[in-house]
């Protein structure tokens, strides 16, 4: 009988020693960056003892939670404003706010659309709902509005718009075939189980840049290390592979 008890104590000891210099980071991440972030985290955890726990959510929710003491070490927001506001309230470690990616917008459909010269023209030619992220809440929604305004289609298409709370819900509306078209984050185009019949990357000049910023909220060597990793070579490779531009 004494052996299992000794074993148990031994494991406890090993666990304690093993974790002496390893930290656990809690990282809040915007939904459009969740896929690349998972990939970056698994690459990071292979070369570091630190572990990272991701919490997916909208920037607005993370903002409200952080104002009320949410225990996140880092925030990767879908925009720059949320991080800026948190910085104003001194909820961010000074000097740690940085841009990690510039988002790209894509127009997608599950149905084959005949290629036309002016790709946005397809919206006016074909009937059906158009899913967009909420322009008041989500940076991809704001960029969609600017794009459609730029093309002179915003007023005309208004009655056909359905509003998702963010780009990920706009994607859901299209993927479930409830909306014919959708403006989504280009990062979703790399989702393995999703195949669109029509994809068009919106040229960057049609909307203001979607500047996605991050910051450290609770300072630690591990947080600084992970921030370094993200902006470093392997982080950047993953970020660009999901269709983002680098800052």
């Amino acid at each position, binding site marked *: 009988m004494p052996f299992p008890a000794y074993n148990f104590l031994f494991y406890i000891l090993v666990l304690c020693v093993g974790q002496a210099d390893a930290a656990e980071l809690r990282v809040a991440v915007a939904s459009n960056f969740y896929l690349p972030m998972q990939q970056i985290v698994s690459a990071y955890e292979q070369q570091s003892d630190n572990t990272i726990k991701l919490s997916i959510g909208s920037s607005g*929710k993370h903002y409200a939670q952080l104002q009320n003491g949410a225990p996140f070490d880092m925030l990767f927001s879908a925009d720059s404003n949320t991080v800026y506001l948190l910085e104003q309230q001194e909820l961010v470690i000074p000097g740690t706010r940085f841009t990690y990616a510039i988002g790209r917008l894509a127009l997608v459909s599950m149905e084959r659309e005949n290629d036309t010269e002016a790709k946005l023209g397809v919206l006016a030619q074909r009937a059906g709902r158009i899913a967009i992220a909420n322009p008041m809440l989500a940076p991809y929604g704001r960029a969609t509005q600017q794009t459609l305004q730029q093309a002179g289609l915003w007023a005309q298409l208004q009655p056909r718009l359905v*509003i998702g709370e963010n780009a990920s819900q706009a994607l859901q509306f299209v993927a479930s075939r409830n909306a014919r078209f959708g403006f989504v984050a280009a990062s979703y185009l790399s989702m393995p189980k999703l195949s669109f019949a029509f994809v068009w990357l919106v040229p960057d000049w049609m909307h203001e840049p979607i500047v996605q910023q991050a910051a450290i909220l609770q300072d630690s060597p591990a947080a600084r290390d992970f921030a370094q990793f993200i902006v470093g070579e392997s982080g950047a490779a993953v970020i660009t592979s999901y269709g983002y531009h680098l800052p």
Partner: protein
Amino acid sequence: MMLTDFNAVLLTLKLALVSTLVLLVLGTPLAWWLARSRWRYRFLVDAAVALPLVLPPTVLGFYLLLAFGSGGLMGLPTLAFTFTGLVIGSVIYSLPFVVQPLRDAFVAVGTPPLEAAATLGATPLQAFFSVVVPMARPGFLTAAVLGFAHTMGEFGVVLMIGGNIPGETRVASIAIYERVEGLDYVAAHELAVLLLLLSFGLLALVYGLNRRARVVGA
């Protein structure tokens, strides 16, 4: 308060009213069957009726979205993003809140009054409307209030299938959520207080009426 937010409250009331009426029409025969049936597998139906209590509303909404979308595959226009779609979602979401009080009220009425009515020559339908309905009136009130109130507080289902269209699917809970997400906490508070007062007033009114009804009934 902004007009769009006020309209969202009106839409919520309309959704709750329509859904409650549909639920009373569909839920009454179902509750009656649940109260009277001796079928040995009746418990399975009881469990199915209670399922919306367990299932997270966003999950329910997600499957409704998939269901509506699969209709689109057959060339049917989707019910997502429409008021009708929200009513269907609400009816499923609030089903147990209407069926369970009705079922319990019908069980409480029991068999003897029905036998008496039958002896006096009443058809089952006559017996139901002139004996059971008056006796089960508190049950109907409770069912209607709970169905109405629960639909007013509906959020997850609408979030998933609504598409946030003003006047059509942008109900009060969605409007509050949008204000919170947009960091406009003042507007969110105003809407929330209005919704809270309305709901409390309504619940207080009906429970007050119900209390009197019980006293009269006794």
